[in-house]
């Protein structure tokens, strides 16, 4: 079995957790992967400074979709302030896979859109596009 496409990645890709629309929501954002035009959105409901609920939406490759699904399980219940400080290492550790420089953009797309939603700034460098 291939390292990058481990069973649990494929499993999350095929049956992503917490995908869809969340109404009403308090925070939302949308980002693109300039590598391929893939889009990911997130909607978040906040209660007592915590992420009470969250849904990702959009389309993408196995890596970006699985990453969003896996992250969503960690994010629900987290302090919004803490979520704002999450970095690339957090995401990559969570995935637990070796990843090439190009595919990092895929792996980190959910983090990018999350950060956009909780900090309001959508200009997080991801590298050259097409």
């Amino acid at each position, binding site marked *: 079995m291939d390292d990058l496409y481990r069973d649990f990645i*494929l499993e999350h890709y095929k049956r992503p957790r917490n995908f869809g629309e969340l109404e009403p929501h308090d925070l939302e954002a949308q980002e693109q992967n300039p590598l391929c*035009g893939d889009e990911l959105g997130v909607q978040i409901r906040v209660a007592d400074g915590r992420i009470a609920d969250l849904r990702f939406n959009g389309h993408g490759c196995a890596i970006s979709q699985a990453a969003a699904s896996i992250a969503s399980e960690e994010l629900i219940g987290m302090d919004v302030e803490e979520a704002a400080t999450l970095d690339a290492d957090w995401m990559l550790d969570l995935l637990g896979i070796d990843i090439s420089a190009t595919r990092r953009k895929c792996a980190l797309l959910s983090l990018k859109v999350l950060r956009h939603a909780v900090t309001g700034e959508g200009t997080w460098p991801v590298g050259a596009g097409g």
Partner: protein
Amino acid sequence: MAGAMRTATAPPTLDVRADFPILKREINGHRLVYLDSASTSQKPEAVIAALDDYYRHHNANIHRGVYPLAQEADALFEGARKRIAGFTGAPVRSTIFTRNVTEAINLVAYSWGRTTLRPGDTVLITEMEHHSNIVPWQLATQATGAELRYLEIDDAGTLSLDQLERELERGDVRLVALTHVSNVLGTINPVAEVVARAHAAGALVLIDGAQAVPQMPVDFAAIGADFYAWTGHKALGPTGVGVLNADAALLDSMPPFLAGGDMIASVEAQHSTWNELPWKFEAGTSMIAQVVGLGAAVDYLGALEMERVRAHEHELVAYTLEQLAATGGVKVYGPASADDRGGVVSFSVAGIHPHDVAELLGRENVCVRASHHCAQPLMARLGVPATARASFAPYNVRADVDALVEAVRGAQRVFA
């Protein structure tokens, strides 16, 4: 090797793998199956050697030196220009070197577009253009108040000459800018026919030949276009050099684009006059070594004969279409027959994102591109964010197609 096989039905094909040093490279025990030549081609020994020879024996700045080395560099550079112009049947005087085809198109968009277009004018492009033949026209039309309109494609990825006729009849089209061969669909457009109709309607025509020039015989004079732009690195040449073939009288009438050394006749404090063509449009030190390298590339392609290159890729494309059709869950975009397309096959695999396809193929050292291929409006038309794309060059063989199909089936097993 499949390249050496000749059957009664298959056309004679090329066997040139030994000329391309990079093809010896193995990664993780897999031989290199390079199917991304539409993105950039590999380089034959002859091109690498020409660069090496230039820097080791002849390097000097051109046009102004009187010592022997400078004369040699000059003769190599201007000699290469002659052969490069000849390769596409274009006049030497109006064969301009740019950084890449993108810059060649920008040259026209700035020097002709921004100085000529007026509100009420239209630039007509197509839904299958590369961003490099879209965005310069967005900016030029926005800057001048002109309009940007699109010719549509049908579901087979073909342009309609009827729609072209209707657009031209509106009487406001000043320029038709279209690709000769689509880098996504492979579609070969009827460019000579487009030129004839556009000229009859008083419109100029710019053709993006980035994919066509490496893939088939191209005759600028026979096509009759006003501007024909192409790029060296896709045509077995070095990175860093593009070509604009153009009508000389038109270039003479246009103001310069980039300004500085070499493109002037004289400079006074407040006023300058321009050098003759082609130098008027070549500012600063030229990409000397790269032009010399591209000269070696067109010599190499010329010796292969472009008719044979075309036949070779035609056969590979036909075989690829056949093999992919025999693989369940694979959808191919563009014309159904290899007769109507260049050496490019875009496809998608059901249930697997193109990135994942390319990644899994890459592990077998099968190099395909997964991307919007710098053609987002076309992706929108096709209703996909991206496709996977295999593309061919003279050094590809049937075994490459077999490796591709095998790897696609492997990817399907991973995602099963």
